[in-house]
């Protein structure tokens, strides 16, 4: 009985997760419509903003990519994750290539491919998790210490280097690239994702603690190395100063006051003022409009929704036995949770503005694409695991998978 139920869950991945995702997509498309009409009206585009239409298009892309990815066999995804990572990494380099890279708002974060612009930094978030999950689950071949031929020497030196050292070098490099765009928020999120892989992948505690200390130290150095970052912190603290509130403190102050304006029950659909004032009303500060118009009830629901998705993913990962699958599912959950927390704290003016979107809710094609790939992979891993689960059952007709798995072991 338990097994047959397991099968139905497994065939579709996790149903609750799907429902949560659909809810998030609905909330997101509404929020982008609501927060976007203010700018659209001001620009004479009419009620339906261009970004809302693009958001719906990207939601379509999300569904297609999610469906394809979640149907792919895990071993294929494992192999592809390396390719995906290298592609995203290349994108992060292309950002700086004139003609391909696109700048806006004083930062070089996008690449233009025909009519669409992509933000490789966003794609690097799931790519890093998938890539590190892949390389940390590779088992090095047993080596014969006493053989002296070239193959054995390479097995002892080059292979461990390529599998155990090089990926981390690449990840560090990608952090530097993204930070240089400059996009400290995204770089920090990529780093946090990598840290999640180590945490869930059971790295030794001294390493984890050491990395945490190092990250804090590097963060402190970064915050103080560039004047504008230090200034941003100082600005945030004094955002209600008359000299600051209309300039650099505008976003945080306006977001905070809008939420306060909303209060417990909100000002009502479409009645918010923040979207008329905030420059990033549909992207980084999309939560502001939800909290303003729907009050604490609305903001609480969004918090529960995003918390539910991320924690559900990590809880599901606990059941998984396959190392890659476990780390991917948990890592994606970790990433979504952490990014949500940071964005929500920023919108609530608890921390200085960092340029990271709210998963599912913020407008942004790259963000949705990254989520589609990450969640698709997680869903695929969940399905796969339910198949392997069936292996324990006496009547197994999934030999193909079993054989594959065994052959790799």
């Amino acid at each position: 009985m338990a097994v047959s139920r397991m099968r139905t869950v497994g065939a579709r991945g996790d149903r609750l997760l799907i429902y949560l995702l659909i809810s998030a997509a609905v909330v997101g498309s509404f929020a982008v419509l609501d927060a976007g009409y203010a700018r659209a009206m001001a620009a004479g585009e009419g009620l339906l903003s261009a970004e809302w239409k693009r958001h719906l298009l990207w939601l379509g892309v999300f569904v297609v990519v999610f469906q394809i990815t979640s149907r792919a066999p895990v071993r294929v995804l494992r192999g592809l994750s390396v390719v995906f990572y290298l592609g995203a990494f290349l994108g992060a380099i292309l950002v700086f290539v004139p003609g391909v890279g696109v700048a806006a708002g004083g930062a070089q974060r996008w690449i233009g491919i025909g009519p669409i612009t992509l933000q490789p930094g966003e794609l690097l978030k799931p790519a890093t998790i998938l890539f590190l999950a892949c390389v940390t689950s590779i088992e090095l071949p047993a080596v014969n210490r006493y053989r002296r031929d070239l193959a054995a020497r390479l097995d002892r030196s080059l292979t461990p280097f390529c599998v155990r050292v090089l990926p981390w070098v690449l990840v560090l490099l990608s952090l530097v690239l993204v930070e240089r765009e400059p996009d400290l928020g995204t770089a920090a999120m990529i780093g946090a994702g990598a840290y999640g892989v180590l945490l869930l992948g059971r790295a030794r505690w001294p390493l984890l603690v050491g990395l945490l200390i190092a990250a804090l130290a590097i963060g402190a150095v970064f915050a103080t190395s560039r004047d504008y970052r230090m200034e941003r912190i100082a600005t945030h603290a004094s955002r209600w100063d008359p000299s600051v509130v209309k300039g650099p403190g505008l976003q945080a102050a306006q977001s905070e006051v809008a939420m306060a304006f909303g209060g417990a029950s909100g000002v009502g659909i479409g009645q918010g003022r923040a979207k008329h004032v905030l420059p990033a009303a549909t992207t980084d500060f999309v939560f502001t409009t939800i909290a303003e118009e729907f009050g604490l009830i609305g903001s609480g629901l969004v918090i529960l929704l995003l918390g539910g998705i991320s924690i559900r993913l990590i809880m599901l990962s606990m059941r998984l036995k396959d190392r890659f699958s476990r780390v991917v599912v948990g890592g994606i959950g970790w990433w979504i949770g952490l990014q949500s927390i940071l964005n929500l704290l920023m919108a609530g003016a608890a921390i200085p503005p960092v340029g990271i979107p709210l998963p599912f809710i913020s407008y942004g094609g790259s963000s949705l694409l990254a989520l589609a790939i990450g969640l698709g992979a997680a869903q695929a891993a969940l399905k796969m695991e339910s198949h392997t689960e069936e292996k324990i059952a006496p009547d197994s007709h999934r030999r193909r998978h079993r054989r594959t798995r065994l052959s790799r072991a």
Partner: protein
Amino acid sequence: MWRSRNRDTSGDGPARARIAIGFLTFGFLLVGANQLRVQVSARDEILASADGVGQLVTERAVPAERGRIYSADGRLLARSAKLFKMGMTPDRVPLSPAFFADLSEATGVSAAELMDFAARGGPGRDWEDLLSRSQRDAVRRIRADYQADGLWTKSAGRREYPMGPLAAPIIGWVTDGRGRTGLEASLESSLAGEKGLVVGVTDRSGRFIPWLTRSILSRPVRNGADVYLTIDSEIQRAAMQSLAAQCELQKADDGVVVVLNPINGDILALATWPDFDPDDPREALLGAAEGLRVVGPELNPAVGLRFEPGSMFKAFTVALGIDTGVIESGETVTCEGRKRITDRVIRCAGDHRLKAHGAVTKELCIEASCNVAAATWAVEIGFNRLAEMIRGLGLLDRPGIGLTGEVEGDLDFDEYNKTLQAANLGFGQSLNATPVALAGAFAVFANDGMLVRPRLIMKIGAEEQPVRFGGRVFRPETARQVLAMMEQVVQGEHGTGRSLRIPGYRLAGKTGTAQKRDPETGRMDSGMYVSSFVGYVPAESPKAVVLVMIDNPSAGQYYGAQVAGPVFDQVCRFLINYWKMPAERASEENVAAR
């Protein structure tokens, strides 16, 4: 960990996942707590601090449009130019080359300069380059396209004066949006209007969102009123040009021409010299400060300077003499060229030499300008009656035409030797009056002895400025009689203004040549003169009184007819032509016969 196998059997996985779940749960709880703080517990404090710095609602003043000034013939004399300035706050514009290229194309400011400024950071500034309305719209489009919140435009507050220096002494100019002098200053409250106030919520581009605007706290803008003057732009132009030419020729300190409609007191032209450029008065201001010009652009000599009327005052003396019965018809005074009155000697002068007029009738007193006769009658009239008339003529009042810097006339009531003072008053000395007040006073002869106060402002907005009558000064027949005497000044064979005849037309007038008191020694024989001429065109029921005063001509000539006369002549010829006055055949023949 590297050696751990794919298939985990250690059972440590759930523990690590639980740590992650715990961490995220803590994070989400933190978010929830923060929302609770912002939206419920600390809500009032946040709203209060936002209100304190004007972030909850925006209050914005809506600048009122400054009123225009029109001449009586509908010519625009002053208006606010629809020009704009662009400004930028560096931190809030995109640093993309395309943005600066577009902005440069729209405004004409070099892209390199804009980019350099934006890249350097620091406080915002605006550019002096003036933008037209279409350029302003282009800048606004760029602002929307690039979401450049730090880009703004504002009205440049410039004032346009289509007649330039020709109307500048009346209009004045505006500095920093406020009238500095002239009507711009005196009518500031009417012209400026009242700025409005909008209180509400603005969107990113700074526009108010209609349904979030608080109408109770907002106040509509009241634009400045348009002002209509009595000035005729063509007469003003002619008067300004004639005056400037003559003042330059005569090397005068300053000069004034007042052209007045005697029936209603409307000032048709108010020309002064030296003139200045209202678009850029700095040069004139500097010239006045350095003493290069006697009269600065902030002083209108027509209302701000006092002159002795000199001989032209004899017309008033004779009129009062007739009205009071002091001068009986046919009565003569014998002029020997000099007359002792108390301890002083009054002299009649003609072409620098003492001149005895012989038996002088009241007609000849005006025509030949005899000081002795005028002084004799003035003493008989007495100081009190003269002073009463002077008051009645408004010569001691401010002109009251609405200009800045108007001064009152000046008559010394404390002088102990009232007899001598009356004698001096008889031919226009020991009295100082502004040119506009004098012109107004002379209009009584063209208005059957009734005084009409000069009027410059016809209408402020819809509010008509009334014609102000000053009451009767002379009997109607006296006024007509004196006007006929003044016709002889031009048309008569002894007339001091006989050089000013215009064939086919009968003109009337009176010359005036007053010695100026030396500002340093206080003596009258300083060699400084005020040459003046007041005239009527035509002599029969005049349509205009023209007063010309030229202060301190230093090119050798100083007689009123020689110095001020030519300006009167040119203005009259212009008026005749401009109003298409019919020529009188008979008098044309008269003139031809002479």
